[in-house]
């Protein structure tokens, strides 16, 4: 329980009125920045670095912690309300979150995201505090073969969301994988599918693709039908989460945390795969069949996964001094500003600072909940804006987000192109989800496969060189072999639901 005392000591030194004020500023700025498209938490911390040089380390960390969690949470607000995810980690949230918002349950979606983020962030931070060194040792043992196996698992799971028409589902999936190919082959430096356009040499930004297909595609679809269909008024919902919402949310929160945290702790884990696995799991487990029409589980799970992975990032950072995300490297360079060398000795040589940082994360996380929960119903009112104005706002936000990342008008052109693709997909009944998953998974899978094969010298046996990889392949095999039986057992229960769900997805 030595760690517990240390953490309490950290809390004690962090909990001063002045520090709480810095935490509050951090949370508010972070949420604001997270809501703004195109600026991530890493950018926000980099912008604020010069300010914090004049603060003492404790206060600076508290502000960072607030900014970080605030930024992660803020991204979900636009995803839910406007269907414009601000970063790749909140793409999955948009799927069910926006459906909920349009069914008048925006406040509940925002609240489950806020509470889920809090639960996941707190559990994650506590896990970091107690198990960092042990976890870090395990994490470095996982290499490309294990990552690749995880991606294969994710890809196999995508087949469960292909929809009723396998042909259309696969068409969308392969379209996504093709979009993921665009850009420079990072192993050989050869450009692929770039048609000589410089801006395409870089990989396509998943945010631009997702916002184009989701938000723009839908705005165009609505515009195309505006005069033919009666206006659908968004009902005014209740402002708070009801007993049923809590009941439906808590398990996804915990499951999402279980997905997110280990991935965050992996040096090449990231937040995309866990949010995505969490979404698919919740969808698979849901017996209500309201996925596609605004299932609260589909927001609770991915949002928890997203924040848990954000907390997991601190495992390699504190235990090994390894920055595995842009945000972590900005934070580490802030440490260097205080004359501290990041490395494996960080937790022993600067224990007081590390525990203060962990305590700051807990404080930042709590303040985030306190400040944002009351705001959820207010944000949700945004949707009462009349539809033409609302969609104009969405388009504005989408374009701003695409432009702000690189300040390049070309990206707006790209956004419009994907918007048109989104419109066509809706018109011809292609589900959009497999496409997005293809865009996310394709490049990750490729780079891990290439890495594994380079290391093994082209020998495919190298893919089975790690125990975790073998375990995952066995699981996949069991899943595939067992599938016909599961399907038969479930068929009767699900059939009616799936058909409706697909109608919704296509709609």
């Amino acid at each position, binding site marked *: 329980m030595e760690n517990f005392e240390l953490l309490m000591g950290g809390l004690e030194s962090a909990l001063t009125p002045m520090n709480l004020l810095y935490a509050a500023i951090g949370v508010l700025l972070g949420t604001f920045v997270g809501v703004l498209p195109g600026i991530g938490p890493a950018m926000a911390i980099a912008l604020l670095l010069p300010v914090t040089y004049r603060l003492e380390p404790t206060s600076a960390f508290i502000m960072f912690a607030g900014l970080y969690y605030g930024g992660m949470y803020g991204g979900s607000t636009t995803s839910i309300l406007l269907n414009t995810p601000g970063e790749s980690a909140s793409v999955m949230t948009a799927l069910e979150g926006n459906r909920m918002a349009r069914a008048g349950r925006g406040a509940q979606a925002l609240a489950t995201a806020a509470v889920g983020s809090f639960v996941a962030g707190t559990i994650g931070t506590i896990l970091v505090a107690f198990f960092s060194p042990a976890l870090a040792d395990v994490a*470095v043992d996982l290499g490309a073969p294990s990552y690749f196996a995880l991606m294969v698992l994710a890809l196999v799971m995508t087949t469960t969301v292909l929809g009723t028409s396998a042909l259309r589902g696969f068409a969308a999936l392969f379209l996504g994988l093709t979009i993921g190919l665009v850009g420079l082959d990072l*192993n050989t430096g050869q450009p692929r599918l770039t048609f000589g356009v410089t801006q395409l040499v870089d990989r396509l930004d998943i945010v631009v693709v997702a916002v184009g297909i989701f938000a723009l595609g839908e705005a165009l679809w609505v515009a195309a039908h505006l005069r033919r269909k009666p206006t659908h008024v968004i009902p005014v919902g209740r402002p708070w989460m009801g007993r049923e919402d809590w009941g439906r949310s808590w398990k996804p929160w915990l499951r999402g945390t279980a997905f997110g945290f280990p991935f965050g702790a992996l040096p090449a884990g990231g937040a995309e795969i866990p949010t995505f696995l969490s979404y698919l799991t919740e969808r698979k487990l849901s017996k209500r069949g309201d996925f596609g029409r605004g299932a609260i589980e589909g927001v609770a799970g991915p949002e928890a996964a997203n924040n848990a992975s954000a907390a997991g990032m601190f495992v390699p950072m504190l235990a*090994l001094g390894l920055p*595995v995300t842009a945000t972590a*490297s900005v934070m580490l360079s802030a440490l260097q500003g205080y004359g501290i060398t990041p490395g494996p000795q960080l937790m022993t040589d600067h224990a007081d600072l590390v525990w203060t940082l962990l305590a700051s994360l807990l404080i930042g996380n709590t303040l985030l909940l306190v400040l944002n929960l009351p705001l959820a119903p207010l944000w949700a009112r945004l949707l009462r804006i009349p539809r033409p104005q609302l969609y104009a706002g969405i388009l504005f936000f989408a374009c701003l987000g695409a432009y702000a990342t690189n300040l390049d008008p070309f990206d707006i052109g790209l956004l419009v192109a994907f918007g048109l693709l989104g419109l066509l997909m809706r018109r011809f009944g292609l589900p959009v989800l497999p496409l997005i998953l293809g865009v996310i998974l394709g490049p990750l899978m490729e780079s891990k496969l290439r890495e594994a094969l380079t*290391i093994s010298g082209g020998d495919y046996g190298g893919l089975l060189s790690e125990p975790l990889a073998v375990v995952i392949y066995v699981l996949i095999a069991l899943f595939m072999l067992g599938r016909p039986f599961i399907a038969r057992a479930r068929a009767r229960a699900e059939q009616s639901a799936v058909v409706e769900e697909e109608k919704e997805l296509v709609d």
Partner: protein
Amino acid sequence: MLVTCLLAVASACGVTRGEESRDLDMWIPNSPGGGYDQTGRAAVGVLDRDNLTGGDIQVTNILGAGGSVAMSRLMSEEGNGNLLMTIGLGVVGSTYSFGVDARPQDATPIAQLIEEQEGVLVPADSPFKTIDDLVKAWSADPDSVVVGGGSSPGGPDHLFPMQLAKAAGIDPKEVKYVPYDGGGPLTSALLGHKIEVGFSGLAEFEGQVEAGELRVLAVSGDERGTGVFADAPTLTESGIDLVFLNWRGILAPPGISDERRQELIDLLTRMHDSKQWQQALKDNGWTDAFVTGDDFHDLLVEQDKRVATTLKELDLL
């Protein structure tokens, strides 16, 4: 809120300013937290702190194509005397690998600021105890040694092993190189024994070396490093004829007046001479390598040629 966003964007793109304006823009060709970002922001920090410009300095990260997006946009800002951009060896390599026809020497070279040694890193329990052990095993069977670095083809961590291989008589095309996304993932690959040898700038590895988890077989500069790196020999000491230095500096757009160019050089000279900058060098483990104007131009020409030669040997051009 929308108004605020608009303002943010308007200021970020650098609205047109008068010639006489004292405000400056600093473009960073890579993401926050990376080497370019640290160098650029450190320089701006000193300029700001001492108010050397008499105006505001706005820092913008322009991402994309390993810095060549920023590079080609700098070239199209012809005559803009209020713009600076951080540049380095990695950006030069990227312009080749991403096929962008913008040579840094054709912009207005202002000053080189720093140099950074690269190091040859192995995990503590590696069978390679010296650089000689590595070279012997490597030349005997290039396939048996998988190397990694923190940059994609064309970047410093990729160019260095290729030039080292060539200097040791190994065909660079035989080198099995795995690109990692920066120093963090590279270190974990080394610690997890996924690769045998890592090539990277040393600053990020101080902690690991100090803790005895990684060992430096050799450094790439013409002099040994300091602190925990003082024990590692240079390549030339070990009988390998190669000096390889990563560097970073500052460019201005092409076509600015000679007068303005001189003003900017003076500005950076004053920054370089300040105590704060010397402290920043120390904090970040950078080697002072201040070269301005025409000399920096010649240096860029030489570096550009060297990058092109290495990439040609690999059939990447």
